[in-house]
């Protein structure tokens, strides 16, 4: 196995809490504050892992299993996503479906853990979250389908429905004449990114009002190491999904692994800054508007895919 394949998961596991720190810092700068240190999440994790735990007497083993299975599926997702022209260690034909469904497992078990507490707040968050994820999944898969088709000529003998394959095919080629497809898919994936990670305008991660929470409220009753696992899992989700967007948007390969890695990490940090900026300048959408936004993202992915079919003429022959 190529030694470079260890780079994507290693970076994900080690550096992902830094992304959250960058988002906090950006928001703080916008608000005119100094903000917490960039490594704040690492300190939080250290504090949480040192604690004991209190469990609700209404809950069952599912509540205890929620954070564990959620983190496990995200760790596996980190092993599927390529980064910076390094292939993912675990890639196979169709792994983009596997990736999407790993995220779905994480959601499913967190929703069940939330319902396990028997509290109205968690039920509320759970019911909103399942609808939003049901609507955001088509956007993600259709967008990835458009990118997959773009990365393969329509008549190639060797199909590559794998995130790694797509990434390497795009990295080898230029955007060329099909830049519109990439822009549309990037926008759609970015909206899904915001939805999956509970960012404004879908959900406000800093709200203190339970009635307006979606993701925050699902981890309301978790504490101690469980909360640490949840916090780490959400950081990992940010990195993993951001890496997919960076793979699609930035097909730069300089030939030197180290330069590529630095470039991609910088791009990911820039993505985090953009998220921070959005969180600072926008308010959260009304709950009724969020499904419409997600359907809009799905439509963009669909349009990208349709452009693929009809727009073969626009693609430069080098693809």
């Amino acid at each position, binding site marked *: 196995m190529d030694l470079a394949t260890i780079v994507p998961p290693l970076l994900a596991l080690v550096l992902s809490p830094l992304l959250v720190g960058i988002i906090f810092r950006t928001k703080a700068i916008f608000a005119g504050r100094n903000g917490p240190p960039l490594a704040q999440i690492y300190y939080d994790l250290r504090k949480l892992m040192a604690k004991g735990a209190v469990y609700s007497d209404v809950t*069952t083993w599912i509540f205890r299993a929620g954070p564990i299975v959620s983190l496990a599926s995200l760790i596996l997702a980190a092993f599927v996503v390529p980064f910076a022209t390094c292939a993912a260690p675990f890639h196979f034909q169709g792994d983009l479906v596997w990736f999407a469904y790993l995220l779905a497992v994480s959601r499913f078990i967190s929703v069940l853990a939330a*319902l396990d507490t028997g509290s109205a707040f968690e039920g509320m968050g*759970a019911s909103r979250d399942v609808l939003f994820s049901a609507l955001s999944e088509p956007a993600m898969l259709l967008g990835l389908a458009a990118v997959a088709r773009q990365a393969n000529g329509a008549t190639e003998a060797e199909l590559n429905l794998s995130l790694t394959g797509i990434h390497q095919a795009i990295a080898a080629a230029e955007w060329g004449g099909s830049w519109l497809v990439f822009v549309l898919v990037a926008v759609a994936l970015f909206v899904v990114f915001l939805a999956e990670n509970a960012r404004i305008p879908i959900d406000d991660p800093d709200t203190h009002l339970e009635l307006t929470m979606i993701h925050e409220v699902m981890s309301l009753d978790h504490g101690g190491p469980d909360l640490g696992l949840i916090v780490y899992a959400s950081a990992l989700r940010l990195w993993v999904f951001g890496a997919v967007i960076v793979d699609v948007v930035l097909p730069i390969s300089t030939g030197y692994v180290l330069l590529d890695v630095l470039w991609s990490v910088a791009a990911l940090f820039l993505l985090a800054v953009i998220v921070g900026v959005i969180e600072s300048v926008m308010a959260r959408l009304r709950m009724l508007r969020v499904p419409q936004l997600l359907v809009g993202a799905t439509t963009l992915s669909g349009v990208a895919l*349709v452009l693929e079919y009809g727009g073969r003429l626009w693609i430069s022959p080098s693809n």
Partner: protein
Amino acid sequence: MIELLLTGLGILAASGVLALLLGRWSRLANVVGATGAVAGSLLGFLPAWLTLIGGRPESASWPWDVPYGSFSIELDPLSSLFVLIVFGLTGLVAIHAAGYLDLYHKERSLGVPWFFFNLMACGMTLVAVARNGVLFLVAWEVMSVASYFLVTFYDERPGVLEAGRTYLIATHLGTAFLFVMFILMGRHAGSAASLDFAAIAGTIPESSANLLFVLAVVGFGTKAGFMPFHVWLPEAYPAAPSFVAAIMSGAMSKLGIYGLLRVLTLLPVLHEWWAWLLIAMGVVSGVYGILTGLAQSDLKRLLAYSSVENLGLISMGLGLGLLGVSTGTPGLTLLGFLGGLLHLVNHALFKSLLFLGSGVIVRATGTRDLNQLGGLARRMPRFAIAMLIGCIAITGLPPLNGFVSEFLIYLAAFTGQMRLGTGASAGMLLVIGAVTISGGLGAVAFTSLFGIAFLGQPRNERAANPAPVGWLLIAPITILAGACVAVALFVLPLVWMLLPIVSEVAHWELGGILQVSGQATQPLSAVTLGSIALIVVSLGLALLRLALLAGRRVTQAGTWGCGYLGPTSRMQYTASSYVQPAVDFFAPVLLTRTRLDAPLGLFPRRAMMVSHTDDFAKEAIYRPLFVSVEWVFVRLRWLQHGRVHIYILYLGVTIIALLTWYLSTLPPG
């Protein structure tokens, strides 16, 4: 080998009759019926299994006095898959039914349901192995009528007889189409004057293939439950006892798919628009089925609509395979058919698991209403684990078997959109979108089912103290849960077993399939590895947390809920409130009716809200249709005046008319 199968059928029939004759000794009838069902299933399971893992197809034939008929049966890979499903589920459901029915041994005669249950199993098996049109139709009728009597087991309860009537009418309407189809098939059989499949396979003209396919889709689609022929499912399954719903949903509806596949092997050509028809019906059933399903608060209605959704997925897979055949795309053919067939097997497993589980829930708590349940996982922990496996499997999530078959359908759709021309690729877009959204909405429905019924606090006295349920009812559920896990881990051997069936249905020799089989087996082996990795990593993290918490304070307290100190069970989300965002969003296409008596004034007194979701096909298509048919027939009421001598006049006029017509068709001279 085939003698074993016939012996198994004989034992099933004999034990059914014996149970019926033992009428007054209900407990004994219960035991006899159940033992016969299990023994017959075991005997019949073996030859089907051996044929599927690589045995030679065997056939047997006896002459029969019925015109065009002969008692000819054959056990080839396609038939043995369905025989396997029928017998496997019959045996397991019979064990559950023995425990379930025992409660009624004082007030009901238990010989009657066992007679019909075993008869239905015989009918289903004969449908799967029949090689003659008349035998097929007879077995189909036996299966349908026997299941009608099982559906109306609780005939004293309101609504059950009407549900049974809906079912009977629907299945006979479908069977009528099958009659016409077989008659048309046999018209060109020539001098053989028989509806043997071997005889008619070569003689069907290409011009009638389209009509035959449409008739098959309507006839078999009614039994399978495609939209818009599915309207009997949400009526019959809740009315029927849970074990009946389990066997019907797990085995009988699959025989609708079997019929369709068998007709495909008989037809001389495969047109491309057939594939698009199957895909379109699959898309509509898949999305609309689960959408209506998640809006239900009746547990068994939810499961019934979920059956419609999964039949839609199966249809999409088979349609994709058919598309591959007609466009000459081998990868698409393999992946589509494999995905459809594997999802069929998986659905048989997890849907019967869930229906048997609903039987346990009804027995323990006395209600099917999700809004009345809660907290069952604390009170029935092992049962809850089996149901969780079922819910995860049916949502199509890794690491279980539902994901594997949906993965294959995704791969097929992605392959299709890469390989096919522009128009077809747009259709693939629809398929990918439909599978994704049905998976997402399935997650809504089944987190609702499991979360509301099993988690949180009980919303009702009976749910807080569930009655103890015998191990006979729970053992088959555990076995089915184990089977779901086994299929997920051992999917590759199962795929090898399904390849001969793909070869048969796609008219494609096995050697060609094996050349492209890597397109399916390589991703599947990676998925299996990933599923195992998911389980291992989860266990590892669990051990990590255990190590972290060792020696630290771990206490229990009430649910914190952000400092709210007095949570009651009524404050929790109910099933209706849980799905309300989804139902609201899809309101334009869902027929959800709400009746609201809002509280008025400063000190609210009376308030009420009732909401229920009706079936779109039933309200928008069938009800107007049947009402207009009734209008026409009311206009003809004057013919039924009751005067006997005018009736005799009707007879005379008809005879004279028929004689005149017959004489005019005779050759002159």
